[in-house]
Structure formats: C-alpha cells, structure tokens
C-alpha cells in the first residue's frame, strides 16, 4: 500500500506539455534539425563552401551499369559516407535521447538502418532499376516488410526506426525547395478538396458503422477520423476525445496500417495504368492515403515512375499535409464536444477546451512554412540562369539529397516496424465499415483530382 501511495502521490507534474514540448516532441526536433540544416546550407552557400554538398552525397543517382562501378563509388567516397553517418547518428541520437528514447537501443538500430538505406540507394542507383519498377521507396518498404516478417528483428530495435520523426524532418527540408507562392496559391484548392473528402469519408464510415452494423459510436468516430484525416495519429487523438476503449484504437490502427500498405503498393501502379500525370496522381494519393509516411512512399514512387518526382511530392504535400493534417485538432475538439454534450460519456479526465486545437496541431508544418518562406526570400530576384547554374546545384540539391535520406530512413522504418502477426485481429463489421469509407475516399478523390481539379494539379 505504501508503494501505491508513493505512486499516486508522486508529485508528478499535473499538466504536461507547454515549453517542455520544445525538446520532448519530435515535431519540434524536426523543426530544429530541419531549419538548422537549411541555415547551415545557406551559410555554406554564401561563403562558397561545398562542404554540405559533399556531405549530402547519396548513390541513388549513380546509374551504375557494373557492380565494379558501385564498389568504386563507395571506395572513393568512404570518408564522406563515414562523416555523413556520424552526423546523422549524432543529431538523431542526441535528440532521441533527450526525448527519452534509450540510446543503447537507438544506436545499433540506426547503424543497421543506415547500412540498409545505403543498400537501397545502391540498388535504386542501378541504371536498369526503373525498368523493373525498383524505385527506392517501394523497394525499401518491401525489403523492410520482408525482414520484419520473415527474418525478424528484436523489438527493441524499433527505438531506432522512427518513422514519424524521419518523415517530419523530410517534410521540413522539403519546405526549403517548395516556393511559398505555390503554397499560397494552391493551398486553398488543396484545403477545399481535402475538406470535402475528409467530411464525406468520415461521415460515411461513422454512419455505416453505427447505422448499418450497429457498432459503438466511439469506435466509429475513431475509425472515421483514422480513415479520413490522419490515420493512426488521427485515431489516437480522437480516441482520447471520445473516451474510446483500447480495442477501438487497436482496431483502427490495424485497419489503417493494412489499408495504407495496400495503397502504397497499388496506387502507383493504378496511376501508371490510368496514365495520370505526376501532379494529378500526387493529389489523388494525397486524398487516398491516411498517413504522411505511407503517402510519401506512394507519391515518391509514382513520381519516379512518371519521371517527375517533384510534382508528385508537391501535390501530395499540398493535399495531405496542408489540406488534411492541419485539421486534426479541430476534429479532435469537435468530437470531444459531441461526446461530452450529446453522447453524455462517462466523465473521466479533462473537459474539452479550445486549446486542444493547438496542442494537437502538427507543429512540424510550421517548420515547412518557415523553410519555404526563408528560401523563397533568399532566392527572390535570382535569374533563371543563375538558378540553374548556381542556386540549384549548390543550394537546393544538397537539401533535396538530405531529404531523400530522411525519406528512405522513413520508408525502411515503415516496413521494419510492421509485423503483421502483432497486429490485433478485427471483426468483419469494423473491417467492412472502414473499407466502405476507403472505397468512397479513393473514388471521390479520383473524381476530384482527375476530373474536377485535374487541369490544376497537372500543371504542377
């Protein structure tokens, strides 16, 4: 009993969050690291130094035709890769340690992840890789899934496979190559399209689940937001808002993971079969995929297949990150109010308040906007000729390469952390309710991306 008393009167902080989020949340770390790299890049560029450009090396664009070429590349650049590895290890290791992740678990896992990433880049750098659709994102995902499900890795290694952290850093770095004028002009279209689809999909899942299958409305709310706004993160936020049970979240996470993986593997090939332009496909994937990490894998893969990765990634980012992710806090607050005032849920925990909108806000998006505005300002007035000769190769390409590294860490980590045998089984009723929503999401997303706003997305 004494230990129980110690536990309940431990003096633990009553309200978490606040300023400590600045060093305890990976959203903020993605901002610090991403903007730090951007500032360093600008500083090196201004001083005429090519240090960061050298460090941002990756073998993905090698186009090697013989194995000797690949080996020679690694032999010639071994010191550079060693320095690059050390830099990643230090910045990720230190930040993860501060967030509370055990360094003894993170470091060996990251060593493995870096080595595997190098192998993925090496394979994707083969001159004939694209002929066999061996695009780095899909390859990384499939090999990661194979290792985790058929070979098996100790679970403690998940500490180094930080899917969300890597994708958030990649998004902040992406902001640096994303003109702020594009965000301003395309943002409203993306928000309009994304809101339409999110509302329709969420309501479809909710009403099919409650009215047709008679499922618990809290579960349907979790499934609805998970399937329409922000996948696992959305499910987790709504679970707290409506007082969902553990099984409700388990069900939603399983369905989101399984459907997200199916769509990563199929949407690029369906887009290819339909002959969609990279921008249109990116917008469609942005409305169809639930999770940022999964969507970037699909958009990046199709962009490479279509020969215009930038357009696919830009359209996806506008649709998913700006159009959908920003609203997670609002959805959370709305469902909290509904569950408290209409459903009369059992009163446990805090009452809903408007601060929830900010607390759930995906802060890394701020880093994306700041990086975009900063580089847009720095390059304003640069002539197209200077842009091509100097600014792109010396200022923007290193950021692109580092972003590619962050994304490959992310895509591999998705596969390495997804163990199908560990996912909780779900009943056929939640499965059907969610699947109907997925169908509506994909079809409506296609109609809006291709037929309503197709001309617009095609110009990206």
């Amino acid at each position: 009993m004494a230990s129980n008393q110690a536990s309940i009167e431990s003096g633990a902080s009553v309200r978490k969050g606040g300023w400590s989020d600045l060093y305890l949340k990976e959203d903020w770390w993605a901002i610090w690291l991403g903007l730090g790299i951007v500032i360093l890049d600008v500083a090196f560029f201004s001083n005429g130094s090519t240090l960061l450009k050298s460090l941002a090396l990756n073998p993905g664009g090698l186009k090697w035709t013989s194995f000797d070429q690949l080996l020679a590349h690694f032999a010639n650049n071994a010191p550079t890769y060693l320095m690059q590895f050390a830099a990643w290890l230090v910045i990720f290791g230190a930040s993860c340690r501060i967030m509370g992740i055990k360094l003894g678990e993170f470091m060996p896992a990251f060593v493995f992840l870096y080595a595997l990433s190098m192998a993925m880049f090496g394979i994707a750098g083969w001159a004939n890789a694209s002929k066999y659709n061996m695009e780095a994102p899909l390859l990384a995902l499939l090999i990661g899934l194979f290792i985790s499900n058929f070979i098996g890795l100790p679970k403690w290694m998940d500490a180094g496979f930080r899917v969300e952290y890597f994708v958030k850093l990649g998004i902040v770095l992406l902001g640096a190559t994303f003109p702020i004028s594009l965000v301003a002009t395309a943002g409203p279209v993306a928000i309009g399209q994304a809101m339409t689809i999110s509302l329709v999909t969420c309501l479809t899942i909710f009403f099919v689940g409650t009215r047709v299958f008679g499922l618990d409305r809290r579960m349907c709310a979790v499934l609805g937001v998970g399937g329409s706004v922000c996948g696992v993160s959305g499910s987790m936020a709504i679970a707290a808002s409506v007082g969902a049970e553990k099984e409700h979240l388990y069900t939603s996470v399983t369905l989101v993971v399984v459907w997200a993986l199916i769509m990563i593997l199929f949407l690029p090939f369906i887009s290819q079969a339909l002959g969609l332009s990279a921008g249109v496909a990116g917008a469609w994937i942005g409305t169809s995929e639930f999770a940022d990490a999964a969507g970037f894998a699909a958009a990046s893969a199709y962009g490479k297949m279509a020969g215009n990765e930038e357009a696919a990634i830009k359209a996806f980012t506008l649709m998913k990150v700006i159009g959908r992710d920003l609203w997670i806090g609002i959805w959370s607050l709305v469902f909290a109010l509904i569950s408290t005032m209409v459903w009369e849920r059992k009163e446990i925990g805090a009452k809903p308040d408007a601060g929830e909108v900010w607390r759930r806000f995906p802060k890394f998006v701020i880093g994306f906007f700041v990086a975009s505005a900063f580089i847009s300002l720095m390059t304003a007035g640069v002539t197209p000729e200077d842009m091509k000769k100097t600014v792109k190769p010396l200022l923007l390409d290193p950021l692109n390469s580092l972003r590619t590294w962050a994304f490959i860490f992310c895509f591999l980590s998705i596969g390495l952390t997804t163990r199908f045998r560990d996912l909780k089984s779900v009943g056929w009723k939640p499965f059907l309710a969610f699947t109907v929503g997925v169908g509506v999401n994909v079809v409506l997303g296609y109609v809006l991306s291709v037929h309503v706003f197709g001309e617009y997305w095609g110009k990206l």
Partner: protein
Amino acid sequence: MPHCSQCSHCEDDPGAFERMVPGLGSLSSGYGESKGETALCRRHNMFMIPGPGCTEFEARLAAARTEAAP
C-alpha cells in the same frame, strides 16, 4: 485536487504507448504532437486527456493517506 496523471492507472508514457498499441510506431509515433496528452486509464479501459481524478481515485488517495497517518 487529485489529478489523473498522478494515478498509477494512468498510462501516458510515449514509449509505453508505442509498445502497448501494435502498429502505432509503424505510421505514427508516441512522441509526436498529435498524441497530445492522450493517456489510457487502465482502471476504466478508456483513452482520455488526464484531468481531475475520478471519485475512485479520490477515495483511494484518501484511504492511502489515512493508512499512512501516524
């Protein structure tokens, strides 16, 4: 006033959250802002945002104080 976050049934540790929900770390994270203050009340099997403790917690706390009193 007791608070859920002081209760032994309240689970809000990001690492524990990732281990508790299979698949959570595959496409999301316990360390992200979207988790917010989400916690699981193991006593009521309910996700929540920690707030003023429930009546059971208050009673447990009072009993523990009484027992500890000289």
